[in-house]
């Protein structure tokens, strides 16, 4: 009895200790770094070497954070980060050495150049797919390096510019400057990631379609994160030149980028602390093997390959996935509370269909996937779209939400013609949950719901980075609403847990909650019940009914007929791209055409009997 009582107490203490462990480690590290110049001065004749070591690592950490924002959070493969570092270095060298202006003016120019350059690269390559985008950044990087080689009057050509220095600052003062900038950049990263802006970025990375269905504009979001990442890369380059005293085109070549990739993947891509931790580990290791410096690249390369195989999620990711490091598993709770009013459509006109498609036609090559479909979904109802596999249900929905361009027909949202782009349709209040789950598995359940709210959040990146009142007020409201929604769905006990650790059924439920968080008038669910156990299907049915009772139109594409017959008010049956029946479930079920479509026509098969 006493033993069993002790065990949970001990786990609790352990968990509390573990929760504070990162903070404690950070505090110790911060203290050591602040006292570092004094320590090295006391113990070594070569203090400036050891100070420079830490400063260089801090600068690497800044670049790696920038890379993390672009690749880890934004999903934008960048091979031009060393090039942007070179640009930043040129900016500060040109301003200080050639123009005689103060160093911080150079730093400002470096950030501006980095931002403009990355925005330009993104703007010209919006049509490119993921692989090609990476290749364009590679070409951009090569152009910067070759440009540095060629434009001697500004860049000093192959030899570069020497004598770059932070005028007016001692080496030790500059050490503190780099440390402070690194800390600031880390905070910027955290503030962006933990705001609606960052959640939108992650949504676009996870799936541009899901993001668009939540009313997030993919292009705008990508531009924002890539520009910010570029500005930070430029900043890092300017500090690099100031720290080392020179800049030349070799800084920009891709070979030098390997160390940042190693840092990012070793520490953990897509985590806040990963880049810093990874760079720190590399700096320490490189210092330890400096007597065999010619093996450094070999060592880094092998480390990277091994890390990818052994700890594919990096140090931070592996820790957070481990039994000790992950947030404690939540518990199941009964649903309670009510839906927050702000996500509900309010008063609806029952006579105007919430979503209507008229004469929709969609060809793929010569195949008519959708062939003149009429469908009308009333507000405050659950409308099922059913039909055999490959009959055109999903294509119909993709037409209704403008993910496909229709070849003929109109789409009306509450009587108004629907806009042409998916995110604009979502802004009009039509959202959808896709067949394949697209949750942010590495984020908490609560954060996942918050991502759905981005459409209704009105603050921008600046408010988020500076945590202005505008951001704070809205974030508080968003969190309260998200908590309400989770409680209503019976997931309140699991709000802090990582979404990836939920059961399959809970994940589906969470996706529905996230979609509703955007405050839609029409909610389209594509096969939500697949793979769910009966209790989970009941929970889903309860949510659908609750949404309907509050005026939402719910469209259900589903194969589980018990579920469909149970919750739907009306059914549209599609076969071979045409509507073959439409009406209340009981009527549809008895329709002979529906029976044939589902079970086949044995009488057509020759020599069967």
């Amino acid at each position: 009895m006493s033993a069993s009582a002790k065990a949970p107490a001990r786990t609790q203490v352990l968990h509390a200790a573990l929760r504070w462990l990162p903070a404690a480690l950070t505090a110790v590290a911060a203290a050591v770094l602040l006292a570092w110049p004094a320590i090295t001065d006391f113990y070594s004749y070569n203090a400036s070497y050891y100070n420079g070591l830490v400063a260089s690592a801090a600068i690497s950490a800044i670049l790696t954070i920038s890379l993390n924002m672009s690749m880890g959070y934004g999903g934008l493969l960048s091979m031009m980060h060393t090039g942007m570092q070179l640009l930043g270095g040129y900016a500060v060298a040109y301003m200080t050495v050639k123009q005689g202006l103060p160093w911080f003016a150079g730093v400002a120019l470096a950030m501006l150049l980095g931002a403009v350059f990355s925005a330009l690269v993104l703007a010209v390559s919006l049509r490119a797919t993921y692989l090609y985008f990476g290749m364009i950044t590679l070409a951009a990087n090569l152009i910067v390096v070759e440009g540095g080689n060629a434009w001697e009057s500004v860049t000093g050509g192959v030899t570069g510019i020497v004598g770059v220095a932070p005028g007016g600052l001692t080496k030790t003062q500059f050490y503190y400057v780099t440390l402070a900038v690194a800390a600031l950049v880390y905070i910027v990263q955290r503030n962006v990631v933990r705001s609606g802006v960052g959640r939108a970025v992650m949504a676009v990375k996870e799936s541009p379609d899901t993001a668009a269905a939540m009313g997030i504009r993919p292009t705008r979001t990508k531009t924002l994160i890539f520009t910010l990442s570029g500005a930070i890369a430029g900043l890092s380059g300017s500090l690099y030149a100031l720290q080392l005293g020179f800049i030349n085109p070799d800084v920009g070549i891709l070979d030098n980028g390997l160390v940042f990739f190693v840092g990012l993947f070793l520490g953990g891509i897509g985590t806040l602390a990963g880049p810093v931790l990874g760079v720190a580990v590399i700096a320490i290791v490189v210092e330890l093997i400096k007597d065999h410096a010619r093996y450094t690249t070999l060592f880094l390369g092998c480390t990277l390959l091994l890390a990818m195989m052994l700890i594919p999620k990096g140090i931070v990711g592996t820790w957070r996935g481990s039994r000790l490091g992950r947030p404690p598993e939540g518990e199941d709770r009964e649903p309670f509370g009510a839906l927050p009013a702000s996500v509900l459509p309010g008063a609806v006109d029952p006579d105007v269909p919430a979503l209507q498609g008229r004469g929709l036609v969609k060809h793929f090559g010569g195949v008519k996937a959708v062939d003149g479909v009429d469908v009308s979904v009333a507000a405050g109802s659950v409308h099922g779209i059913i039909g055999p596999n490959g009959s055109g249900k999903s294509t119909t929905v993709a037409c209704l939400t403008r993910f496909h361009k229709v070849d003929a027909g109109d789409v009306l949202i509450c009587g108004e013609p629907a806009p042409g782009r998916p995110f604009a349709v979502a802004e009009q209040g039509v959202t959808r949950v896709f067949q394949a789950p697209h949750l942010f598995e590495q984020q908490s359940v609560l954060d996942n719901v918050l991502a759905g709210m981005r459409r209704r959040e009105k603050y921008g990146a600046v408010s988020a980075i500076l945590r202005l009142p505008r951001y704070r007020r809205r974030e508080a409201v968003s969190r309260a609403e998200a908590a309400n929604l989770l409680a209503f769905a019976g997931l309140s006990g699991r709000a802090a847990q990582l979404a990836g650790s939920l059961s399959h059924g809970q994940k589906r439920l969470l996706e529905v909650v996230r979609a509703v968080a955007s405050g839609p008038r029409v909610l389209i669910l594509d096969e939500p019940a697949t793979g769910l156990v009966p209790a989970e299907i009941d929970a889903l049915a309860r949510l659908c009914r609750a949404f309907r009772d509050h005026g939402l139109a719910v469209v259900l594409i589903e194969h589980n007929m018990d579920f469909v017959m149970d919750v739907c008010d009306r059914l549209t049956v599609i076969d071979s791209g045409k509507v073959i029946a439409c009406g209340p479930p009981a009527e549809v079920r008895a329709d002979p055409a529906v029976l044939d479509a589902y079970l086949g026509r044995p009488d057509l098969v020759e020599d069967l009997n």
Partner: protein
Amino acid sequence: MSAQVWIDGLFAGSVYALVALALAIVFQPTRVMNFAQGEPIVLGAAISYQVVALWQWGWPAALLVTLLLGVGMGLLSERMIMLPVRLSGSRYAWIIATLAAAMIFQALFTLRYFDVDSLRPKALAPGHVEVLGARLGWQQLLTIGVALTVMAGYDTFLRRTAYGRAIRAASHDGDAAVIMGVPVRRVILLSFVIAAVICAFAGALAAPILFIGPTSGLVFTIKGFTAAVIGGVGSPRGALAGGLLVGLLDAVVRNLAGATAGDFVVFGLLALILVAFPSGLFGKPMEAH
């Protein structure tokens, strides 16, 4: 501009074309754009330098060693790249793994030949002929000839043999190929080996003329990649067209505007093509890994 420029351009272009072909061979079944594909070029150059220039064993020995080590490098690359790609699950795994492999090979070459600027043995086919007042080296002619033969041979292999059809099938749909009885993993291993051997021979043949240093691998990868993008990563013919175009452009621009301008124009062209034609000029789009 003399005819010499065109000849040099065609010669360099045939080497880039072979890299482009090797990139395509690996890319098709794996969807991995191998940034270490230029390293076998350096391997071939290093072997010919070591065996012909230093040990004086002659070219037949050099070609034999090139074949053996080329196969070894292909096998090793496949492990170094495909294991992390399969185990990691990250969408960036391919680029990180191939870059790491490139850096590892480069580090090994640099460790062995840190005091060598250019890995240059004497020519396998010395001498030259005069063509329109320009010197066409026999070595150059040999390399161009080998490149054309390899292209034609691989094209035939893909179209006419059971294994070639299997490779094309595995490129299109790996799972469907498996249930046709195609050993897709073995096809992938074979692709890495073929690609490495092709590049190693290209390196050995080009070394007497072209500048190849211990760290030149990545440059060849990128030029080969440019050629592959221009030609489309689908057909050996595209690789050939792309490679020759890159080589000629490079040579012509260098001749007109000085040495540094060549790369600038080639990379600028790469960017322009990627931006304007997201599926290459002649080929089908490459889908990402």
